[in-house]
C-alpha cells in the first residue's frame, strides 16, 4: 500500500514534468521541421536532417511577417523597453523599500498597502486610461511611453520583494555604521545594497521579464515604431494559412531569455517569488 502510493506520487510528478516541458520541446522541435513533417500524420518527432529553413525564413525579407523588422526593430524595442524599465524600477524600488523597511513614519502601513493594491491593477483595464493619456501627450507608439508604464507597473512587485529581502537583514549592521558616522547614502550603497545584491538581481530579472513578456500594454499603446516582439506574434496566427514552422521559430526565439533566467537563476527567482508573495 505504502509503496504503491509512493509510486503513484512519482508518476503524477513525472506526468506534470512532461506536461510542463512538452509544449516547449514540441515547439522547439517543430521549428526544425520541414513543412511536410509539420503536417505529418502520425506526427514525427524530428526531421532528419533538422531543417533550418524556418529559422532562415523567420528573418528573411519579403515574408508576410517582415522578417528583417523582427531583428532591426521589434527585438531592439523589446530589449530597450525591458532594460530601461529595469533601470528605472530598481533604484526607485530600492529607495522605497528602504524607507518602508527601515523608518517608522506616520502612514507607513498605508503606503505599504497602497503599493500592494497597485499590484492588483489589471493591466488590460489600465491600457485605456494610458492610451488616452499618451495620446494627449503625442507619445503613442513611442518607447518612452512603454518604459514609463512598465516601470510603474513593476515598482509594486519590486518594492514588495525588496522589502522582504531587507527585512531579513539585521539592522544592527547599519546602526553600527551610522554610529560610526556613516551617512544614509553610505549606509545604503556600501552596506545595504551589497548585502541584498542577490535579491536585487532576482527582482531585476522579474522586472525585466514583466516588460519582456507583456503583450496587453504594448498591443494597445504601439503600432509600428515602438512595437515589441510579442505584439508581432498575431501576424503568425491570424492569417488563413498559418506558417507553423516560422511561428515555432519565432516563439522559441522569443523565450530564450526566460529560459536562460529560469535555468541559471532559479534559486534566487524561487526565493524572490515566494518571499515577495508570502512575507508580511
Amino acid at each position, binding site marked *: 500500500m505504502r509503496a504503491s*502510493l509512493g509510486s503513484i*506520487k*512519482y508518476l*503524477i*510528478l513525472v506526468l*506534470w*514534468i512532461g506536461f*510542463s516541458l512538452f*509544449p*516547449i520541446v*514540441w*515547439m522547439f522541435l517543430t521549428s526544425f521541421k520541414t513543412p511536410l513533417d*509539420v503536417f505529418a500524420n*502520425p*506526427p514525427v518527432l524530428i526531421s532528419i536532417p533538422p531543417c533550418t529553413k524556418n529559422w532562415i525564413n523567420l528573418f528573411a525579407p519579403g515574408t508576410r511577417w517582415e522578417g528583417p523588422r523582427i531583428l532591426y526593430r521589434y527585438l531592439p524595442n523589446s530589449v530597450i523597453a525591458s532594460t530601461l524599465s529595469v533601470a528605472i524600477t530598481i533604484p*526607485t524600488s530600492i*529607495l*522605497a523599500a528602504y*524607507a*518602508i523597511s527601515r*523608518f517608522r*513614519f506616520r502612514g507607513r502601513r498605508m*503606503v505599504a498597502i497602497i*503599493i500592494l*493594491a497597485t499590484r492588483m491593477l*489589471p493591466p*488590460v*483595464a*489600465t*491600457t*485605456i*486610461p494610458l492610451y*488616452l*493619456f499618451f495620446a*494627449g501627450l503625442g507619445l503613442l507608439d513611442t518607447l518612452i511611453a512603454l518604459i*514609463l508604464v512598465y*516601470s*510603474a507597473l513593476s515598482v509594486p512587485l519590486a518594492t514588495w520583494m525588496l522589502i522582504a529581502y531587507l527585512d531579513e537583514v539585521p539592522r544592527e549592521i547599519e546602526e553600527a555604521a551610522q554610529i560610526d558616522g556613516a551617512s544614509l547614502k553610505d549606509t545604503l550603497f556600501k552596506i545595504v545594497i551589497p548585502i541584498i545584491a542577490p535579491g536585487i538581481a532576482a527582482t531585476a530579472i522579474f522586472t525585466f521579464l514583466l516588460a519582456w*513578456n*507583456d*503583450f*496587453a500594454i504594448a498591443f*494597445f499603446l504601439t503600432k509600428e515604431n515602438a512595437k515589441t516582439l*510579442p505584439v508581432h506574434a498575431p501576424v503568425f*496566427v491570424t492569417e488563413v494559412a498559418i506558417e*507553423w514552422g516560422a*511561428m*515555432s521559430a*519565432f516563439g522559441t526565439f*522569443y523565450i530564450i531569455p*526566460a*529560459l536562460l533566467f*529560469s*535555468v541559471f537563476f*532559479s534559486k534566487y527567482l*524561487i526565493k524572490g*517569488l*515566494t518571499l515577495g*508573495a508570502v512575507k*508580511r
Partner: protein
Amino acid sequence: MKRDLKIPTPLILLLPLIILFSTVLIYPWALGFWYSLLKYKPMYGIPPKFVGLSNYIAIIKDPVFYHALRVTGYFMLLAVTFEMVLGLFLAEILDGIAYERLRKLTTIIILIPMMTATVYAALTWRLILYPLFGIANYLLTLLGLPPQDWLGDPKWSIPVVAVVDIWQNTPFVILILFAGLQSLPTEWIEAAMIDGASSWQIFRYIKLPFLKPLILIALFFRIVITLRIFESVIIMFSETGGPGMAAQVLGIYLYWLAFKIWDLGRAAALSWIMLLLTAGLSFVLLLKFYKEVRI
C-alpha cells in the same frame, strides 16, 4: 538615528515612486474617469460631449457585458480550481522527494512555464491543439477517443484558454506551497509519526492547517489575476472572442469597445468598472481571509 531626521527622510526616499505613480498611474486613471463621462468617438470626428454616467448605464444594460462577465467567471472557476488542487498536491509530492538534487532539478523544470510569456504559452498550445494535425488529437486517437475541434467548437473555447493558464500558473501555487512545507518544523512530523499518524493524517491535520494562510494568499492572487485574462484569448482566437464569442472575456469586450467600435468614452467607463470589480473582489477576499493572513 536622530529623531529630527526621521520625518523628511522617508518622504525623500519615496519621492521617485510617488512621482512615477502619480504621473503614469494616478493621473491617467483620473483622466480616464473624466473621459468615461464623455461621449467620445474620435474616429467619427464628433466633438466630445459631456454625458454624465450614461456610458456606465449603457454598459450595465448591455447583455454583452454580462456575457463577458459570465465567460470570465467560468474561466476563473475552471483555471483557479485546477491550479489550487494541482498546486497543493504537487507541492506535497515535491516536498516528499528525499534526494535534494532531484528536488532542485524538478523545481527548475516547474518554474520554467511560469517565466515564459503568456503569448508564447498560447502560441505553443495552439500548435498542440490544432485540430488537423495537432499532437493532442493524435494522442486522443491513440487512446481510442474521438478527436476534438479544440479551437472551433465553442464548448472547448474556455477550457482551452484555461489549460494555457493552468500550464503557466500552477507553478506559482506549487512553489509557494512548497516553500511553506519546507518551513514546517520537522519535529512536528516526527512527533506525529511516533504517535502512529498515517501520512494522510499528517497531511490533513498538520500540513494543511499549517499551509492555510499560504493557500489563501495563493488563492487570492490567482483569483484577482485571472480577472485580467486577455492575451491568450487574442492569440488563440484573435480579437473576435472565439467561435460564437464563447471566449469573449472582459478584456476582449474592452478591446472591442475601444478599437473596433472606437467608443473610447465607453471603453474608459468599462476600465473603471473593471478596476472597481478588482478592488471590490480584493476587498471582499481580504476581509474574508483577514483573520488567517497578515498581509
